[in-house]
């Protein structure tokens, strides 16, 4: 009898437990994947510079692109920007990047091309 009233609660608890474990497992998978990816990207970037077959001008642009990808891995997987409650950090970073990009782009355009 007593078991009867307790059972639903423990089931709920067990369900929550399972869900949390699944979420953790998922996240661990993400971490592993991004960790391997980041190492691979670093190796690729290293080879782009190391190899003589790839021209310097292309290599610079190429590793800059890889760097952007790495930043996103870093921010979203490792610093949990994908989780709830990170609206303000995202807004802050986006507007900061925007301001910095406008500044750098127009400075380069205005000072070093004219």
């Amino acid at each position, binding site marked *: 009898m007593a078991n009867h009233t307790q059972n639903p609660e423990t089931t709920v608890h067990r369900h929550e437990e399972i869900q949390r474990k699944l979420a953790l497992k998922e996240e661990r998978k993400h971490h592993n994947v991004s960790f391997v990816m980041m190492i691979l990207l670093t190796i690729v970037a290293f080879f782009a510079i190391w190899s003589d077959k790839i021209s310097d001008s292309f290599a610079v642009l190429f590793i800059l692109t890889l760097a952007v990808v790495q930043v996103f891995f870093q921010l979203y997987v490792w610093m949990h920007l994908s989780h709830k409650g990170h609206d*303000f950090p995202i807004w*802050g970073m986006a*507007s*900061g990047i925007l*301001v910095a990009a*406008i*500044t750098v782009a*127009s*400075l380069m*355009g*205005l*000072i070093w091309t*004219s």
Partner: protein
Amino acid sequence: MATHESHKKRSGLMDWLTTVDHKKIGILYLLAGGFFFLIGGLEAVLMRIQLMEPDSKIFTGELYNQLLTMHGTTMIFLAAMPIIFGFMNAIVPLQLGARDVAFPYVNAVGFWLFFFGGVLLNLSWFLGGAPEAGWTAYAPLSTVAEDTGVDFYVLGLQIAGAGTLAGGINFLVTIINMRAPGMTFMRMPLFTWASFVTSGLILFAFPALTVGFFLLMFERVFDANFFNPDMGGNILIWEHIFWIFGHPEVYILILPAFGIISEVISTFSNKRLFGYSAMVFATVLIGFLGFMVWVHHMFTVGLGPVANSIFAVATMAIAIPTGVKIFNWIFTMWGGQIRFSTAMLFAVGFVPTFVMGGVTGVMLSVPAADYQYHDSYFVVAHFHYVIVGGLILGLFSGLYYWYPRMFNRVLNETLGKWNFWLFFIGFHLTFFPQHWLGLMGMPRRVYTYMSGQELDGANFVSTIGAILMGAGTVVLLINIIISASSKYATTKDPWDGRTLEWSMPVPTPEYNFAQTPLVRGLDALYVEKTAGNGAMTPAEPVGEIHMPNGSILPFILSLGMFISGFGFIYSNWYVAGAGLGLVLITMFLRSIIDDHGYHIHKEEVEADIKGGRA
């Protein structure tokens, strides 16, 4: 729950040196900013005395350049910004329903850094002469100046700027995280919104200034060549960096004034602000556009028609959200029950004055026309119309409006009206003729002019106006002094206020809110008044209140920066190292000393509520 017995009440000077209470730091900001405002005003009057007559020889050449530089620098960095921070400190946590800012200790660090930076800069008067390269310190004028004036400028402002940056970050975090239950973003009072956007601008604009100052400091102290074309540098880099900071800076200044005006006009018209969401949107948009217009300070540099046109269009676009604000203020007054208190007079005087400054701003934003106006008194007239006619009238309005909350006294209304009319008439007498002086070709920053060029009359009128403005400020000082008398004691809500800062008794309790209030709409207090409650509904039971302990470390840390500043100015590395060492020691102490603050017990809070003190 263990309570901490480490809390000891300090009193007198030590209390003010160690305080981390946002209300006291607000007062400190206001006093220090007010002091520098008087110094900057004195410098302005001295310049106007020199320019009263043609061929006058009272303050000539170098001395005039020093007055000019220090007037601009002092007014922007050491008067306007600290007074704004004073109001933000005193009012924003109250308007949010918070017990303090997010980082009370950082708040104290910010104030003391600003204070010591300002003192360092002004000590240059006594130590070989003030900086004389203009508040913009353009290279190569600033890099080749041989005396130590510009060194004081760079180091003093670098230290003060670090304090401002700390303050800006603090208010961003406070406004995002410390809002009372129910205080959504779209229920925040406009002054808090303006403080939020201003803090964002500080966060993005001040690093540019910091970088620029480091470059200039390295150029002067360590013989670097960033701005030296002979060695592969580029003079224009300084101008760009300075204005990438400098243009957002003018919005950092004006947005809080917009916020104050919105509060005052709404309160004294007994109406909710017209077009609240449009006002919020306009504030954010002005902040956003403010970052894309810096080149309009550099139209005559020769960046080419494409660059000039892009930045001209961006500049003109700012007139649109500003116009939205102007109309919303007028519509707020329309049909309201207007009470012309001194605060409201300043707010009403602000609106047309700021429009005039805005119109000359649009005129200046046309590059072709700007070639004519550039470096003439027309520019001087324009930016004094927006900064004095906009910001300073706004700050005076805020001072009369919030004085009861900050100092538990009201200011005398009769003297207040004298203050307003003297200052307002004096202001227009000073700066209105300068439009014509500029159009007639009088260059700015030049210490004299010859007679017989039809410049005499307008210059004379301008000086008379400056003296009237000075007289208005003296009336304000008298008003502040006599307000200390108990005759001027105030009630908790002298203006029939609408926002949360009028909901607690005077003097404001140390913990602001005995119980965090529940916010049920825009103009939270007004909502409760119309609902017949008269007071805020609490969102929590009476309980223990956690408070931070005061600390002398912010003062010592800033003193260390001050000492190292002297070391760098005179290239004495021992002194510089010792100062930075002191900074590191205070940082270390702050890190290892565990200070959990203290608790105000439930019984004390209950006693305060019963005694009408909370």
